[in-house]
């Protein structure tokens, strides 16, 4: 029974308090800063929408936006699919699965500067590991980071490599699937693919939905490794890298803040689209009516 009264407010109250105490003021401040020229040290100078107007005339900005969106369009589905696949593979009772899980989860644990530096070496044209292996088969060498066309594939490679870090949420979601459903399917003679499509996937949709939204946020805000790895022709200069440069290298905080708000609007728009679409494909057990409609 859903309670129609306002009890829910009691539960979300800590967040509402926190929002008003810690978040509202800085956000309001940031909104104002987006309308100013500010070197972070002196009084901001009001310029109205000037920052936003110059943003869309700024070639570097448009390039960074394009690089980021293109990366997001490919990397989000790719990351979700790979993480899901890995989660399914390690959700079995085979021997040593604990060790495999830990090994696959490593990319999430050892993140940071040293890993980015390691990737820079792996992708290196002359001494890199990948070209070293490829040369054994007589292929290459490829300029992974020096050839502008290969920069995006290089970053996608890193996404696939790090997909183990995303397996955890799926793994948790897989625990919600009662084993009797699979047993019943076994008796019906369903093959692996059918079991995945008809049992696993629908129950995982809430988690996939979560990862889709967070994937969009993460891809649009990609920063750390890109800042170190870079890439030829500014193909590795993502939105946040350019924002960071403006905020903390060029002391153009007003401009950077305006970029932040543009990014916010883009992510929000994408998220709203995803939320709108969710009633068509996300399946929540608590909403029983939809269950019968879908007939799964």
């Amino acid at each position, binding site marked *: 029974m859903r309670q129609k009264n306002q009890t829910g407010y009691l539960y979300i109250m800590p967040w509402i308090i926190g929002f008003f105490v810690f978040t509202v003021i800085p956000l309001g401040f940031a909104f104002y800063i987006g309308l100013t020229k500010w070197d972070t040290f002196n009084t901001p100078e009001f310029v109205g929408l000037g920052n936003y107007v110059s943003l869309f005339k700024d070639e570097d900005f448009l390039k960074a936006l394009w690089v980021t969106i293109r990366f997001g369009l490919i990397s989000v589905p790719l990351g979700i699919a790979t993480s899901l696949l890995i989660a399914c593979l390690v959700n079995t009772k085979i021997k040593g699965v604990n060790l495999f899980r830990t090994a696959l989860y490593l990319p999430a644990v050892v993140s940071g500067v040293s890993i980015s530096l390691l990737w*820079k070496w792996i992708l290196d044209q002359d001494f890199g590991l990948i070209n070293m292996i490829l040369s054994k088969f007589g292929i290459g060498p490829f300029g992974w980071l020096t050839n502008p066309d290969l920069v995006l594939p290089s970053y996608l490679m890193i996404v696939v490599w790090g997909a183990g870090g995303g397996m955890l949420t799926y793994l948790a979601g897989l625990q919600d699937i009662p084993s009797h459903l699979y047993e019943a399917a076994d008796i019906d003679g369903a093959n692996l693919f059918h079991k995945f499509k008809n049992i696993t996937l629908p129950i995982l949709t809430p988690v996939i939905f979560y990862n889709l939204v967070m994937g969009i946020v993460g891809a649009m805000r990609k920063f750390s490794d890109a800042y170190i790895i870079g890439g030829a022709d500014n193909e590795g200069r993502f939105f946040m890298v350019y924002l960071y440069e403006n905020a903390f290298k060029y002391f153009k905080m007003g401009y950077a803040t305006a970029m932040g708000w543009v990014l916010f609007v883009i992510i929000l728009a994408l998220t709203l689209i995803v939320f709108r679409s969710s009633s068509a494909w996300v399946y929540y057990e608590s909403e029983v009516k939809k269950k019968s409609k879908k007939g799964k």
Partner: protein
Amino acid sequence: MKFWKSTLSLIMVLSLSAMLMSACGSNSNESKNKDASGTNTAVAEKVKLKVTTWAGADELKEFEDLVNKLNADSDEYSIEVQSIPSDYYQKLQTMIAGNQAPDFMWLSQEYVPQYESMGVLASLDEPLAKADFNQDDYFPGALDVGKYDNQLVALPWISQPYVLYYNQDMFDKAGVNAPDGTWTWDDFIEAGKKLTTDGQWGALINNMPLPMFLWSYGGDVFDKDGNITLDSPESMKGLEMYQKIAQSGVVPARSQADSMGGADMFKTGKVAMFIGGAGDDFEKTSNFKVGMSLPPKGSEEVTFSWIGVTAMSKKTKNPEVAAKALNDMTKAIHQWKVVSPTKTGFDEITKIRPEKEYAVDTIRKASEVARGFNNQPKQAELDAAIWDKLVQPLEKGEDIQKTVDTTIAKFNEILK
């Protein structure tokens, strides 16, 4: 309502425990600070000063020791060292924006005009005049980067002039005469050609700042007054030479040099000549005989120097005492860091780094002709433009006049 009570109490307990924990943390620290200053309780009026540094690990401890010694000797000030171990400038910027500016800050030379023009730095001219400050002791090129807007705003504590290191073994093997300090860039290419064989190169220039070639022929990117001089005939000569060397085949491609690290290529015997800071540790870390000479020249004898400075915040409460402390601290660093930007500090080099003794005269000469950039308030943006529009196209062999024109157009866009 029972639920509300339990929720509330849960939150209370959680946040209380958090506060308690953090309070404990700060309490223990306060008492520690008291302990540290407890030795000087008699002179409680000491001016408290703070210096931010990027020094890490052992270097930080050495710096702290040095500062503690100064504090013990002085009854006017007490300096506290604050380590910023990562993203130095981002944290510094945030601190200043939050009105928590340190009294002193280490800066790399490029940042001096930027910080000065934003009103962060205090002028040192007046307060230093009252301190025991000897301007003439500094090598002029080093002190120049501490000046902006006709005033001194920062004191250099290190100035590493670039010198030409060479691998004596490789020279002997190729039968090439070692550089004697009189070389021109053409001699440099000539020797490089003889030293370049399969898998090894004569020299490396990717780590060198481009303006050094311009200075070599009397040009510069900007002149002292901030006018663009990139297209002057002297500057063009320098750019021509840069492109000539980059395309001569005696230097590895940038991608190769970057992936291995220029210094490491020299260390491992992949290149025979390397132009780098006089304080580099090749003598200790390489297994061949290392030689050193002045860098090659064009029409002028000049070299680049990597210069670190300490600047003083405008917000410091007692500028007079602070300037005194800054002067003392800077002098003390001159006894510690190699290479010192002062003539008196210079001689320390043989004590601190005995392995450099063989080249002391070369390093001294280099220090005398060394200089930093004519930095501009928007130096970071300008540097990005130089890299994007000038260095990379030049190395690809594009037309010099054309790249200069696009670079200047970008400069004007940034500076408008």
